[in-house]
């Protein structure tokens, strides 16, 4: 049954299988094309973990090198995306731990949760006009202040790149737990916004 499912998946995406086979022989260009399709999602995954785009890109580069070295351990080439995302997530977590330990050791005032928020796009979308800057800053600060167990799945879900099953696999938790954490994160955010005066008028 597993073989049948694998063959069906391979038939569904033969290009990925071909690129994986080429990359296994040492073809760097094939590997570059392989990760290019998932690079934006990978950078978002890393950004959800480390919070800064520069650190996220560093983590993605480290993860790509690790995936290149371990490509022989990928049993199912059609599952490359999930396998690559898990490596990216682990590398980003390693980077987050090292950054936190660095800040703790040297006592810098700009800790991970206190760094300013960087938005990739300066010009707001038409929907963003409806949100005041004060509310956006309050939401961002509340999200960054969440405990990692709630913040990580919430940001991964907010990226829109992954299903709950993929997030559960990435974080190594049951899907029910992931759903509860996302709902709990939203509840905590709303509660804190209410305390800051941005909640529902009651």
């Amino acid at each position: 049954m597993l073989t049948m499912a694998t063959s069906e998946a391979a038939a569904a995406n033969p290009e990925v299988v071909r690129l994986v086979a080429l990359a296994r022989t040492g073809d760097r260009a094939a590997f570059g094309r392989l990760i290019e399709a998932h690079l934006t999602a990978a950078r978002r995954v890393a950004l959800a973990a480390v919070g800064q785009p520069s650190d996220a890109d560093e983590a993605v580069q480290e993860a790509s090198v690790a995936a290149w070295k371990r490509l022989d351990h990928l049993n199912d080439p059609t599952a490359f995306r999930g396998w690559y995302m898990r490596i990216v997530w682990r590398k980003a977590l390693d980077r987050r731990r090292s950054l936190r330990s660095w800040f703790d050791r040297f006592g810098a005032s700009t800790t991970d949760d206190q760094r300013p928020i960087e938005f990739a796009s300066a010009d707001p979308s038409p929907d963003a006009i409806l949100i005041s800057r004060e509310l956006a800053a309050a939401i961002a600060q509340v999200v960054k202040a969440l405990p990692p167990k709630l913040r990580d799945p919430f940001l991964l879900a907010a990226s829109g790149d992954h299903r709950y099953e993929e997030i559960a696999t990435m974080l190594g938790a049951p899907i029910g737990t992931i759903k509860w954490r996302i709902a709990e994160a939203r509840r905590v955010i709303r509660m804190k916004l209410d305390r800051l005066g941005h909640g529902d008028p009651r």
Partner: protein
Amino acid sequence: MTPQKAQMSQMAEHDRLDAAIDQVTARMVQVRDDEDLAMRIASALPERSSRFHLRAARFGGQVSWLIPQFAAIAFAIAAGVWMLRDTSTPSLSPLPSSDVVAVIGVPNTVVAVEPGTVFRTQPVELLEPVEPVEPLNSPDFDRSLAPIAPMTALVVSDLSPSELPATPALELEPIAIADLPLTAESFPPR
């Protein structure tokens, strides 16, 4: 405002806040486009040592792939030798009395030596065998000590205060203070 309208207003505000949360969190994980990142990563990749290369090396006659196997076999052999080595301890039976060696001439004093003195090992001189001492049948009065008499118990008798020796009463002689010559010359003039 009717309660129904107030409830609808609250729901609209609830949805607006949820939409704001979704929008801000989506922007928090938004990344700038970097089209060259994949090529930069690909160009910086190191050389791979895949299974295919190892198999090719094996078929090419090289034995570098056997190094881990050789190391494992050597470790197993070393562990086996270590486990099977003779770990029995020598017998701890007491030596017969005939093997007791008399020690003669052991120095019992420590002599102060100036610093910097070099000690050299002296050659060992051969000693004449010591004749065994025959046990004595009669008591050796020259070396034995006289027996100690058993100690008698210390007895303390009760003593009443009347039996204490009388001491004479303490007598003090009267203190005589002579008159001081208090005259006008005793004070210095101001």
